[in-house]
């Protein structure tokens, strides 16, 4: 579904992404894990061309996206960010229907789709409200619904649950996983939360200092860390789990 072929990006003298190659299969849930400044967000923004690589190429659904129109491409890819970015002057229904509106859907088609999505995310009654009347968790669900509106096959999420309280976060993580499965999506999620990556993703891509250090299933990463950084990261996860087990027992 997505193939990064030796992509690099520099902002001024700073490397943001350095010679990264990565393939993501259709239907896969991949977490791009890293600390802030590791280049993980830049890497994912290359998929919907919010960032274009200086070198290398990105192929999405078999097409080199440099040859596609960026605006058209984005309308086929779901995109969710941490701050959600709902338009404060539009109702929830209008917010969810933004991409269908840009694509010229009829009002009836939009209304049906909005109702479907509100049911999917478990907020059937908020269509007429405005963003500032919702809680943070509700807003992020709307962000998710908005990204799904035009039935994309590919979803990009940039730290979608980073600003939420733990209970809301866990609930939403569960729903994301469910939706991913139900709609047979390919999902790429940027996160700095190790537990989130380990529990949600089929595979994890670890970014460190603008380089891709290792790609693998959670089990692989824990069992066979490729380098010291990954080993430390996984060691920390194990350590935390043991501590947690001690507290809970």
């Amino acid at each position, binding site marked *: 579904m997505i193939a990064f072929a030796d992509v690099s990006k520099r902002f001024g003298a700073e490397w943001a992404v350095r010679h990264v190659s990565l393939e993501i299969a259709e239907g896969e849930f991949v977490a791009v894990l890293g600390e802030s400044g590791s280049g993980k967000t830049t890497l994912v923004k290359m998929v919907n061309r919010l960032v274009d690589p200086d070198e290398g190429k990105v192929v999405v659904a078999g097409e080199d996206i440099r040859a596609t129109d960026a605006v*058209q491409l984005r309308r086929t890819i779901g995109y969710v*960010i941490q*701050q959600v970015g709902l*338009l*404060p*002057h539009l109702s929830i229904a209008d917010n969810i229907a933004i991409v269908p509106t840009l694509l010229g859907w009829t009002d009836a088609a939009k209304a049906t789709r909005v109702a479907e999505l509100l049911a999917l995310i478990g907020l059937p009654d908020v269509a007429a409200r405005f963003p500032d009347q919702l809680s943070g968790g509700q807003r992020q669900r709307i962000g998710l619904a908005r990204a799904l509106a035009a039935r994309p096959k590919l979803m*990009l999420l940039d730290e979608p649950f980073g600003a939420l309280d733990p209970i809301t976060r866990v609930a939403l993580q569960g729903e994301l996983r469910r939706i991913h499965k139900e709609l047979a999506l390919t999902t790429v999620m940027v996160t700095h939360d190790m537990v989130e990556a380990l529990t949600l993703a089929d595979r994890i891509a670890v970014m460190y200092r603008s380089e891709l250090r290792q790609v693998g299933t959670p089990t692989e990463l824990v069992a066979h860390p490729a380098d010291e950084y990954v080993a430390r990261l996984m060691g920390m996860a194990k350590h935390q789990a043991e501590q947690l087990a001690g507290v809970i027992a």
Partner: protein
Amino acid sequence: MSELLRGLPPLLAAHTELVLVALIAAIAISLPLAIAVAGKPRLALPVVTIAGVIQTIPGLALLALMVAVIAGTHGLGVRLSPFGFPPAVIALTLYAILPILRNAITGLRGVDPAVVEAARGLGMTQGQLLRFVELPLAAPVIAAGVRTAAVWTVGAATLATPVGQICLGNYIFAGLQTRNWEMLLAGVIAAAGLAIVLDLILGAIEHALARRERPWAAAGVLVALLVVVLAVLPRLGGADSNAPVVAEHRAAAKVTHLRLGAKTYTEQYILVEVLRQRLAKAGVAADVAQSLGSTVVFDALASGEIDAYVEYSGTLFINQMKRSAGTPRWRVLVEVESWLAHEGIRSLGSLGFENAYALALKRTTAERLHAKQLADLAPHAPELSIGGDYEWFSRGEWASVRAAYDLRFARTATFDPSLLYDAVARGEVDVISAFSSDGRIAANDLVTLADPAGALPPYDAMILLGKRVADDPDVACALVPLTGKITVELMRRANLMVDRADDKATPAAAAAWLLEQAHVPDGC
């Protein structure tokens, strides 16, 4: 008072039109500019700075500057008139740009970057981003800027009178100069009322935008106000004398309608009425453009914007011909007339009196100092203060009178001409630059000092006619009989009738009185 109220609607309509055209133009310029530079701090700073510099130019100066700029560029290639509406609207537009531009930039920059990123990520084009996200979110801030600009512009537009644009300033300038406080107040209150009404409507629009409601209701009120002001008001009140018929009649072969000019003081208001009443008697209608700046009025005549006004020989000699003082009276008249003929302007000759600059002081002061002529003042000048009108201290006459009599005053002070005579009578200054035909010299018990060296040039009042009417027999028949008929004594008394505090006459009444006293024969 009812006369005042009847004259108000056309002024209010013209004022509103001026303000709205300037505001719309300012929005049309500022908004695209703000959109272009909002994301580029390195561009935005100089742009806002330039707009800020324009804002610091005093309103009157900016308006006068536009007259010069338009005249200098020959109408910017599209034959704009350097007189009236074009310079006024351009200056006011420049004036209104800053608040709108600054607020638009602030508003656009204030849009949450997360919202912008999400919108781009969803696949909005740059134009859609602007239309659906940035402009709607910045709209309340932009509307607040328009509101500020509207109030400023209503105020600044009152200064458009001296460049020949009809507006509420006509009441304010004429009221101030003739000390007609009712007229002044009528102008001021109308301007304040207009500012308040515009502010309320724009405030309602801003509120609606901020609450993300459709602001159509308030916008509807604004449009309704426009229709009333522009369509209904001019038909009320002095419709016949203010109708914009100048252009139509210019094409007509026979002159049936004149546009007369007057500068910003009482004598000019009276004399233009004298001209108008004489023309009316001869069956020629005339509009009056009042309170024009002293050089604006001559340019207006030269360019055909007005057809006639009363000028003073010395003013042309010094200001237009750039000559210096010290030339005898008869030679000044001869040289001025031949210069005018060369410019295509016809002079009908002197009205019979001079309105020259003269230094005046209280009779008691003059007696104490034994001052009869200017030279007598020289030994005392270092202990005396002198007051002058706005122009006096930068005019050639001031330099030449100082040089001729070696006058070094301790202090100079600038006053509005209408306040000068009171200032010297109350002792705020010792000497003033007075006008020799002003009735307040005698009324305030002032004396003028003789000028044996001829340092102050002669100022014979003369009627000037522009090209369009220079050879018109009806106009000549109406105006030629005035020449030589108005003595300085008559002019002083007529001026005093208008200027005095009690039992004031209107300039029109003073003009009628003057015509009667001067025994001007009807016809040629």
